[in-house]
């Protein structure tokens, strides 16, 4: 029930790695991290979810918030997400905003 967030620069933009769970308690930490980025200038934001075991709607809201702050031609990509997270992103119709990579 904890969350660690690390970030790094990539050629195309920023990569964030999430370890642990993103729920009502920890989502504010994710939101804070996202707001510290210069979102309007990013062409790509990648979120590594290989080590993330759970994400509730609080986490989705944080990601959607970030995408809405980014340029409309930018991409927000999540990869390594578990089946439960992929399922949640799809059923809430957020695949318009969040690209799911199977990498």
């Amino acid at each position: 029930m904890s969350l660690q967030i690390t970030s790094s620069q990539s050629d195309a933009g920023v990569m964030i790695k999430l370890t642990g769970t993103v729920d009502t308690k920890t989502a504010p930490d994710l939101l804070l991290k996202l707001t510290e980025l210069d979102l309007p200038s990013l062409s790509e934001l990648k979120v590594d979810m290989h080590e993330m075991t759970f994400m509730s709607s609080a986490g989705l809201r944080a990601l959607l918030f970030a995408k809405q702050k980014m340029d409309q031609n930018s991409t927000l990509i999540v990869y390594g997400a578990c089946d439960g997270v992929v399922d949640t992103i799809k059923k809430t119709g957020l695949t318009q905003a969040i690209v799911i990579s199977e990498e």
Partner: protein
Amino acid sequence: MPNSSIHHDASMKHWDDFMGFIDKLSENKRFSSKKSYRFKLAAEELVSNIIRSSESSFGSTQIMPTLQIAAKEVSLLNYDYLEVVFIDDAPRFDPNFDQLESPNHIEAPVALRPIGGLGLFLVKDSVDSISYKYCRGQNTYTIEMELESAS
């Protein structure tokens, strides 16, 4: 599984206690991994909503509502399920699960998507059955999750 329950003030101070209890329930051996995740998602969303309502109520009344979660396995003729009941004494809140559908804004362009409105939809969508009643000053939400056959 013996009956089990937890009861605390409905505040974020007890978030880890509630989630620890939910985690244990989600580890039921008769849940597939998919069902386990769905149950945990529904329970997290519901507890989050209850706590939000409670803490808002506390702001005006200075009385903190409480939340009790109780679980038991129920065995019927051809159907076994885990029944989990969430009881709080926060102000009345009826989610109208029967009328809840995919939020309209799901089809809206990204820029127009409201940030909220997903939690209750995910609660309803993730469980096998959910019901609500208000009685004696308490909101009661009852979730049922079918259990796979005991081997």
